[in-house]
């Protein structure tokens, strides 16, 4: 699986490298798709309890605009939502993300094709329970356990650092998202790889 992820990243980089470039179109609307891996190197994904490098994957739909700020600087608010939630095999609950990022970006490169960004983000993590009960082994027999029935919303404020590349109407980027920046116990890293397409061509 890691090889597949790595291969995808290589394809992504090669695609980016072959682009002819210029900067993002300000006052336009970019729509696209991202892949977000949450809680890097933190969560176990096997029965031994060992942590994996990658966390769970989500695929947010993204919308972003760029507003001229000063010289090469832009304000680039971005919103993302995982329309396809992670769903339990037993249908017990679903989880999805709503991301609102508010970075400042600066162009650089020969044709201003590159940009780097920094800024806060607001992460809303939504867990939806479907209710009911399920019978599970309890070590000495079988017991009935209730499944969650409510919808819960957790919110964190993150610090995001990213880099992007623009070719004509396409913008690709990768962001490092840090939750719990000031907490030695709860600090968590996530990565989001994304591409977006300027559907208006800088015309609004």
């Amino acid at each position, binding site marked *: 699986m890691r090889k597949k992820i790595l291969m995808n990243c290589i394809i992504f980089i090669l695609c980016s490298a072959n682009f*002819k470039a210029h900067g993002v179109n300000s006052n336009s609307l970019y729509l696209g798709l991202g892949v977000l891996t949450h809680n890097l190197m933190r969560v176990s994904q096997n029965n031994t309890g060992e942590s994996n490098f990658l966390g769970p994957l989500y695929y947010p739909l993204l919308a972003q605009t760029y507003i001229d700020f000063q010289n090469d600087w832009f304000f680039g608010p971005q919103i993302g939502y995982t329309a396809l939630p992670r769903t339990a095999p037993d249908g017990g609950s679903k*989880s999805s993300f709503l991301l609102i990022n508010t970075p400042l970006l600066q162009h650089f490169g020969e044709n201003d094709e590159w940009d780097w960004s920094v800024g806060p983000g607001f992460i809303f993590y939504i867990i939806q*329970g479907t209710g009911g009960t399920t019978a599970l082994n309890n070590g000495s027999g079988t017991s009935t356990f209730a499944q969650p029935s409510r919808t819960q919303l957790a919110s964190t404020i993150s610090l995001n650092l990213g880099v992007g590349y623009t070719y004509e109407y396409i913008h690709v980027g990768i962001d490092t998202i840090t939750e719990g920046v000031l907490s030695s116990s709860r600090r968590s890293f996530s990565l989001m790889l994304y591409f977006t397409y300027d559907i208006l061509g800088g015309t609004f």
Partner: protein
Amino acid sequence: MSRSFILIVLVFVFLRFDPALAFTLCSSTSSGMAGWQTKLLKFKLNPTNCPANINDIVDTAMALWNSAPTSNLIIKREGTSTEVPANLVDPNYVATDVAVIACDNTFSTNFGTNFENSVAGVGVCRIQGGAITRGYLILNTQAGGTANISTFSTTRQHITVAHEIGHVIGLGHSSDQSAMMFYDITSKTKLGLAQDDIDGLTYLYPRSEISGDLPFGCGSVSNINQKPPSGPTALLWLFPFFFIATLRILSRGKFSHQAHL
């Protein structure tokens, strides 16, 4: 242009979708139950009959649950208790201390014949008015029992206590084998939470930095034994810059070539 666009789309199409949530709640009937109605849950420990390193075991296990980034619950050990297992297991008994950890050297008497060989600990939450109001964790320290935690390795002691604490704070078993709350933890060799455990904890104790909880993870306990990803992981901050450097190196030749054209 179109070929590149298709390739980018394929990148996303071929990525995996994870298996997902499977956590349950400690209640057998109440799907709408809530967790403890506090953000700081203090356990009192009765050290009688416990292993000598019980403080370390409990603190390490608690630190694991305190590390969930999307939860606002903090659990800690504070003070000692005089509650005994024989009373705690009585469903009609109302303990003085609301959250208790105790060790039981007569485990088979209190829980059943042969339990001393098959069950290392029991974590229980008691629900009143739709929320957890009391809970206890009893560890098996019966001499001669093969599930006596005093005979376990330190790591397995940590895992056992972490699992039982999970019950006390409101979680039931999970069908996810990678989860700390999976019923059988004998295959675990390292103390760690799965996303399913974090989701369960987040469901019961959601962190809200937009309203109420301090931002950027502030307000966490200071004596955490298990450190979060740090050190080499901090290099992730540099990842975008490695990415820039790689792309610039790859693109330099291409742009020069175009310039000649």
